């Protein structure tokens, strides 16, 4: 359960386990990195978050999304947009995380091509965003991959508290002494 929550919203699994400080740390670090990547990979004209999208075509196989989806809920609008496009419907939210327009030589079906006709092509995105397209992709991928580490941490549960471990180490010799005292007649 905690691992699922940690995947869905970074840090939520840790907060669920009562590890609030770590949960807040994960949330702030990962969501801000992902949001900054979306900001770099878009603009008000093209739409935000253009670097996070689902496409599995001959002309554009977006493997980066496999890393980006590690962040969970923040990357899921891309799936909504892709499934809408597949049904022939135009993307929502001003093209946020919508796939780029197919460029003619891919294997996109007619419905998808028609739905994405008003979206910028991948060439246009690279031309307009320049290096920021790659930077945004790197930021969002790293955020997704780091959240997988956080999910693993939530799945493993809290490690033994370091202060409690030290206290136990100090207690052990005393216990031995009391045992010895009890054994002596």
């Amino acid at each position, binding site marked *: 359960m905690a691992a699922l929550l940690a995947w869905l919203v970074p840090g939520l699994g840790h907060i669920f386990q009562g590890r609030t400080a*770590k949960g807040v*740390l994960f949330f702030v670090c990962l969501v*801000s*990195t992902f949001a900054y990547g979306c900001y770099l990979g878009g603009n008000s004209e093209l739409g935000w978050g253009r670097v996070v999208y689902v496409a599995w075509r001959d002309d554009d196989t977006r493997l980066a999304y496999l890393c980006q989806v590690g962040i969970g809920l923040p990357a899921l609008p891309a799936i909504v947009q892709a499934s809408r496009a597949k049904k022939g419907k135009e993307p929502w939210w001003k093209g946020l995380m919508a796939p780029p327009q197919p460029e003619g030589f891919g294997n996109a079906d007619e419905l998808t091509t028609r739905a994405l006709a008003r979206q910028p092509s991948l060439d246009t995105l690279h031309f307009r965003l320049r290096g920021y397209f790659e*930077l945004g992709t790197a930021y969002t991928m790293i955020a997704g991959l780091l959240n997988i*580490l*956080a999910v693993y941490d939530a799945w493993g549960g809290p490690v033994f508290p370091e202060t409690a471990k030290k206290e136990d180490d100090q207690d052990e010799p005393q216990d031995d002494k009391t045992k010895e005292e009890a054994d002596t007649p």
Partner: protein
Amino acid sequence: MNPLLLAALRTDQLWYAVPLIVVVSLVYAATRHEEMGPILSHALRIGVWIVSFMVVVFVILLALSWWV
């Protein structure tokens, strides 16, 4: 020295690495410890290690560009 390497040394682009180094260090350290003190000190060590690694790679590339 290779002028292309010097051209790649645009410091404004390097600033984009800083947030990533900070986040990677903090998140990795947070998966190793439970309390904030050890997390922050471990994150600092990892951050220094990453920057040192980048400097070493830079020096190797600089040396290669010098001789090759």
